[in-house]
């Protein structure tokens, strides 16, 4: 344990290092997601940012196989924008591009590690792993991470999704019906920013009134 010299060195270095460090966190309100919609010609671009609590009901790092399964299925659901944000048939919209991912508000290298982890182990591998080693190993693994968590404050996680749609007749897109609230029972409302030919505006859509009127945006 050569910890003493380490401490000595770290105290010498830490002050400039601290000055370099950037500390900022986004606002994060459970139950409230953000959706940005941009209309340009026949294209519609959307960005969704929703707290983990809304989508899967928890924000800690996935501990069990069950947690991972629910995250994976949520990501799969989020990757299908037209089933969550239903546009009228007449607009004839189709998905050009859709991507969804879970990001946790921890330090970025940490976050990268999760991604690798997910990539390395994947689903099948993971099941094997669970079968081979049983739960103990898992719990240990979880504990290790719990330490990590104590080092940071309580972490939040957010699901991010980006979509690009193309519509044959965007003017026929008179409303959006938010099946999103049916898909994710913990989500309460979405704050919407929208920009189109006629300028930018903001709306709120909630579970009680899940329809957004787009007339006058074109």
């Amino acid at each position, binding site marked *: 344990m050569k910890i003493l010299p380490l401490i000595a060195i770290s105290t010498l270095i830490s002050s400039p290092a601290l000055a370099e460090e950037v500390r900022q966190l*986004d606002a994060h309100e459970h139950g409230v997601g953000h959706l940005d919609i*941009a209309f340009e010609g026949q294209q519609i671009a959307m960005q969704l940012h929703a707290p983990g609590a809304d989508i899967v009901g928890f924000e800690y790092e996935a501990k069990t196989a069950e947690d991972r399964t629910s995250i994976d299925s949520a990501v799969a659901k989020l990757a299908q924008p037209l089933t969550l944000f239903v546009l009228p048939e007449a607009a004839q919209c189709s998905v050009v591009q859709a991507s969804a991912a879970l990001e946790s508000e921890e330090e970025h290298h940490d976050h990268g590690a999760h991604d690798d982890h997910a990539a390395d182990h994947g689903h099948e591998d993971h099941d094997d792993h669970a079968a081979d080693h049983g739960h103990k190993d898992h719990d240990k693994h979880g504990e290790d991470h719990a330490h990590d968590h104590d080092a940071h404050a309580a972490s939040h996680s957010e699901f991010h999704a980006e979509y690009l749609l193309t519509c044959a007749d965007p003017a026929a897109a008179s409303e959006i019906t938010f099946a999103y609230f049916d898909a994710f029972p913990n989500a309460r409302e979405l704050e919407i920013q929208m920009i189109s030919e006629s300028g930018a505006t903001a709306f709120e859509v909630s579970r009680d009134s899940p329809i957004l009127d787009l007339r006058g945006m074109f």
Partner: protein
Amino acid sequence: MIFRLAFCSMAARALTVTMTVIAIALSVALFLGVEKVRTGAKASFADTISGTDLIVGARSGSVQLLLYSVFRIGNATNNLTWESYSDIAARPEVDWIVPISLGDSHRQFRVMGTTTEFFERYKYRSGRSLTLGDGAIMSDLFDAVIGADVAATLNYNVGDPIVVAHGLASFTNHDDQPFRISGILEKTGTPVDRTVIVSLRAIEAIHVDWASGARIQGQSTPVEVIRQMDLQPQAVTAALIGVNSRLQVFSLQRAINEYPQEPLLAILPGVALQELWQIVGIAETALIAVSSMVIITALIGMMATIFSSLNERRREMAIFRAMGARPRIVLGMLVLEATLMAALGAALGLLLLYAGLVVAQPMVDRAFGLWLPIEAPTLRELWVLLGVVAAGAIVSLIPALRAYRMSLADGMMVRI
């Protein structure tokens, strides 16, 4: 027949009827006036900026950033460093970017430092550009372009010298750097009318001898030397951005909001306006409620006068009945009278509103920079008027039903 009866009986009680009509007219005019001011204020705010996709400033609140950068209301909490500004300007999504530097003043008008591109990029009333009424935009370091209200209030012409002060309510004038008015803008009905526009480098030049806001003793840099200086600004107050494609607006907004080196905020003007309306909405609702109450009060007053007239008119009703009028007719006549009064009140209210607008329009414009358009009544206003007439009819039903019952029971012999 029944119309004639109603008219004649109203004419017979001209004084009370007139009073009732005037009360209704005033209440209607008040309600419509409040609506006009409310929608006028909203429209003039919404028309102030268009064609700008994002406004960037120091991280504060979106409403605050909008208010100080566009409406010159309040002050910036922080500035935006030139490094960050350049970083943002270099991003591929950015089509154009116009910096804005605020903080100096001339008399009671704000001075804004910006680039000449501002005149091309700033749009108002869904896409109108700024036009010069006289002169040209800044070409020299010490040129200033002034808004229409500045020129009108201070009686300035192109070529006049102008002295720019530091800070808003300042006692010291930067009188060693005389600016010259190079152009005067046409009136726009936006805060630009009340702004003195100079170049960013000019803002720096003003402050050459003004370390920490007070003149350094015994030092006054000659104008020639200042012209040779590198007047690169260290910071700007905010920046207006246009993007290449609307599809990139939100990505750029997020990138700026998460910019690691400096806490910045990017807003969509329209979205920030919506937030502002949410805040103002409470006061709006209160205003609408109060003016609705005034209308209701006037209608209740009308009901009271009809009630009090019933006793006087008992004999009249009885005579009608003897002549063979059905109780229905009696009821109908009273309701018709009330409806006519309400309709007259509504029409007179509308007239009062337009008379008031003609008188108040220039005054409101001068005092608040708020232009209330005089135009035909909107559909919503017509609905309000119709509502007043309908409410008058409904309210009058109460005394009319009483008259109906009385006229059934009353014979010719009226006990008085």
